């Protein structure tokens, strides 16, 4: 065997060795496996419910010159408001605490009446005794829309009452900067004493979101 051939043979056998080593997955090293028991894990849920009471007549203001006829329903400027009470509940079936909003949406019953009343409409919410005025911007040309932050985390089974008052002041400054008697301004829009004239059709909803902070 010439020297050249010997080197070639050695190189070939070395390469074959490298192939064997390189093919690690084909090594018949020992292995064993074991499987745990299968366990079923279930997800919970988050369910919001909303209940409504009202509207009821609520006395507002104490202007002695305004006399409310007994049994009068509806909003009376400076004297009587309309009150709804919404109870938002995080269902006892929920698996998590939640924060959320009460989304108020009122569609005008009469576009014409609403356009005239709109500058004088006032709204407020009361949660746990704390009253907050809803900004006038909630009354847009298309209707009444506002999202009330519940302001607290509801655990499963917890409820929160949100009181919504709709009212009109006795007097207001109109768009011309003139202070006017609202009742007089809306004289032609009022209903009969014992009747009610719809301003809005309310369609409210509660949104609960899982609380992000542990």
């Amino acid at each position, binding site marked *: 065997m010439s020297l050249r051939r010997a080197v070639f043979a050695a190189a070939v056998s070395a390469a074959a060795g490298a192939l064997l080593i390189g093919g690690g997955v084909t090594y018949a*090293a020992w292995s064993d496996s*074991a499987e*745990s028991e*299968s366990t*079923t*894990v279930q*997800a919970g849920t988050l369910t919001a419910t909303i209940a409504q009471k009202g509207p009821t007549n609520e006395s507002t203001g104490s202007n002695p010159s305004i006399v409310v006829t007994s049994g009068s329903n509806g909003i009376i400027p400076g004297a009587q408001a309309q009150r709804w009470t919404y109870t938002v509940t995080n269902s006892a079936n929920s698996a998590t605490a939640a924060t959320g909003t009460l989304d108020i949406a009122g569609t005008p019953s009469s576009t014409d009446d609403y356009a005239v009343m709109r500058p004088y409409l006032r709204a407020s919410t009361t949660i746990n005794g704390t009253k907050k005025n809803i900004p006038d911007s909630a009354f847009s040309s298309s209707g009444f829309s506002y999202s009330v932050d519940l302001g607290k985390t509801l655990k499963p089974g917890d409820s929160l009452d949100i009181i919504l008052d709709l009212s009109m002041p006795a007097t207001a400054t109109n768009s011309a900067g003139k202070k006017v008697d609202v009742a007089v301004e809306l004289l032609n829009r009022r209903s009969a004493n014992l009747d009610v004239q719809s301003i809005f059709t309310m369609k409210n909803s509660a949104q609960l979101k899982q609380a*992000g*902070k*542990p």
Partner: protein
Amino acid sequence: MKKSTKALIAGGIGVALLVGGAGTVSFWTDEAEGGDGVISAGTLDLGSPAGGGWEISHEGDGSGTATEPVAFDPSADQIVPGDVLSYTQSIPVTLEGENIKAEFNGSIDVTPSTDGTADTALSEAIESEDLAATGLTGATGDLSLDGETLAGEGDGSVEVTTTITFPWGTEGQYNDAKLGSLNFAVDYTLTQVPGN
């Protein structure tokens, strides 16, 4: 003189040939066998996983500190987005062999309990976080655990903790997974690695 030199050379070759044919020469020989011996292979064995303790903590959207882990009962408790579940098992191992060394590993198997929408959504939402050997208990011999690698001979139990997470996601992202159900299992493997 020339002739006798040739004869001497020829004779030398003859003797060399005779000496070279050693097998035919009847001088003394002896032989002895080594002592008998049995060579045994070692083993590498994973026993049946024992126990199986669940714990749950909640990290919510990550804005706060995660809650301390508490016991979780899969038959009664439910998970929600932001939960982290850990499952700890003890897996018996046996290694025998002078140069045995093995790597412990496993794969997490999460599958929907049924083809239903909620089950599928839950199974898809779950993230398999980690599977880690956290310790070796009851070790005999010189069996030891370094990271995921077992070395030495003996028996013991590897403590393995598996972690899965129900991510927080974006608002409403996992609504489909409400009341979903999944099956969870872990496939453990022990594979020999070179001992050098």
